[in-house]
């Protein structure tokens, strides 16, 4: 029997959609182990986030709303998460494998004397609870057993469908925290957001990604144009980010974002294993590359050997005509 606590991920007072993937994971684990799940919303001014997660059948929605948590720090948030986990009697504490989950949850594991599995993509098939997670840039799946009474996991949300509301509204319970911002050894001085009007990379149905083959920041415009014609998000390789064609927030791969859209179109991308690690679970992969030997073609459903500077604008123009 697991008592699972899902930690809601949010930004700017809004629920991050990845949380719904963690709820799906929690439902699967609860079904397997005969347990149940609760939710926790932690921060300041998080009323709307708490409201957004009440309809998913959680036993309870615990809320810590405190001025001491106005600014994110791993140290402060880990303390608050551990406080809710103890209050809820959680045996599994789960969060998104987002930058929040990656940064904060290992500290929670120490506080709860728990073992932690990172970037979980599924549950093992055996009778006991085990977690499946990618290793070696996704070349291998490892099934891990956590030997401590409490488990901490981060969930790779691209691998789980977003939960639909079900199971009725949950009672909301306010929880007090002992976190004092002044007592922390770290402070957030500034947050510099990446501003984009396009859909978020990890949530989009269609992703258009550009690589070093784009050759310059200005040339990335043809990627944006195609993305806008499709209402798609934009992504990039590490090489494109390193060359400053685009901000780091758009990197897809082992050390960037993991995406699993219905359609991924990659242009000027060779297909290094570290990039494939972030996109090979897209439903349909299209690759545009002038080198017919490029490794990305080994995973592409539709490969187009050609010059991206011709292909992308042509594709954009065709799609615009279609839309009328």
């Amino acid at each position, binding site marked *: 029997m697991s008592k699972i606590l899902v930690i809601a991920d949010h930004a700017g007072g809004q629920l991050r959609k990845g949380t719904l993937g963690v709820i799906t994971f929690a439902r699967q684990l609860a079904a397997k182990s005969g347990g149940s799940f609760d939710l926790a919303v932690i921060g300041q001014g998080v009323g709307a986030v708490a409201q957004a997660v009440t309809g998913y059948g959680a036993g309870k929605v615990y809320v810590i709303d405190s001025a001491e948590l106005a600014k994110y720090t791993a140290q402060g948030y880990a303390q608050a998460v551990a406080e809710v986990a103890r209050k809820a009697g959680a045996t599994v504490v789960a969060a998104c494998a987002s930058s929040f989950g990656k940064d904060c949850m290992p500290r929670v594991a*120490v506080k709860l004397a728990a073992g932690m599995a990172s970037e979980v993509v599924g549950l093992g098939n055996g009778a006991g609870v085990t977690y499946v997670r990618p290793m070696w840039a996704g070349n291998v799946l490892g099934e891990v057993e956590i030997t401590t009474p409490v488990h901490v996991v981060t969930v790779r949300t691209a691998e789980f469908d977003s939960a639909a509301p079900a199971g009725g509204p949950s009672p909301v319970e306010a929880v007090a925290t002992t976190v004092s911002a002044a007592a922390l050894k770290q402070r957030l001085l500034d947050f510099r957001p990446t501003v984009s009007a396009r859909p978020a990379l990890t949530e989009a149905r269609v992703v258009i990604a550009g690589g070093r083959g784009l050759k310059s920041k200005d040339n990335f415009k043809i990627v944006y144009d195609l993305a806008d014609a499709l209402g798609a998000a934009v992504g990039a390789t590490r090489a494109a980010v390193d060359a400053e064609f685009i901000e780091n927030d758009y990197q897809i791969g082992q050390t960037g974002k993991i995406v699993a859209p219905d359609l991924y179109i990659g242009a000027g991308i060779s297909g290094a294993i570290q990039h494939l690690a972030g996109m090979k679970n897209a439903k349909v992969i299209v690759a545009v590359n002038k080198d017919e030997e490029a490794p990305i073609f080994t995973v592409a459903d539709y490969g187009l050997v050609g010059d991206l500077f011709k292909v992308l604008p042509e594709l954009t123009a065709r799609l615009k005509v279609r839309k009328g």
Partner: protein
Amino acid sequence: MRKRNTDGMKEEAVKILVSAKRVTDPDARIRLKSDLSGIQSEGLEFKLNPFCENAVEEAIRLRDSQGGEIVAVSIGTDDAATELRRALAMGADRAIRVAGKDDELDSDLVARVFVKVIEAEKPDLVIFGKQAVDGDSNQVAQLVAEYLGWGQACFVSHPEGSAGMTSQTPGLKIANGKAVAMREVDGGAEIVEVDLPAVVSADLRLNEPRLPTLPNIMKAKRKPLEEKTFADYGVAPTLKVKTVRYANPPERKAGIKVADVDQLLDKLTNEAKVL
């Protein structure tokens, strides 16, 4: 040693502890043995974990500008001496290898050993890599920070292109008993301040790791490398996370080549039905 830089901030000398994990070649296509008991290691090359290279490079940059000492630490088999020698050849001052085998480690055990090494060495700053490219766990730095009750700055980088930042802006500064760092996070970049002693984890864009020169490789052979065991530090080799099975990920097959944009659009619309 104490220096003042031009803007009047005190830049104190820093003792830095840095990690140096031996990992499989990050660009190798890793495959499982046919009985799925582990990875095929025959013919595989091993390297210093790329993120640890960034950590070592950053330590050198800090020491060279403000003085101090760098101790490189690896938990691994005899072979891990190679990666420690590389860290020494890059510029670390001395090294410690704690004997351990990868399949008998988890991030928590690694962290508990580091805590003991840190308690013995008393560094001002500990720099880890963001993740080890074999296990991809991304936990050790955060675990160590919590065990010690220290603040952390993880995934430190200098995100080019974010407001006001250029690739020349260093991602990590040490002054006035504090570390100020820029970290890559979802949706942008954070500037954080952490009291020393502190834990940092390095992302790949933090710096360009140097290649050791031949004279420095020779010099590194004479730098001290201590050999230690878990028992020396009184750490119990218990695991909280055990890998019980390996599997191959679902294989993705190459599809077809399309001749032109027309055929691509036709396939996406009528066959894949994603447009």
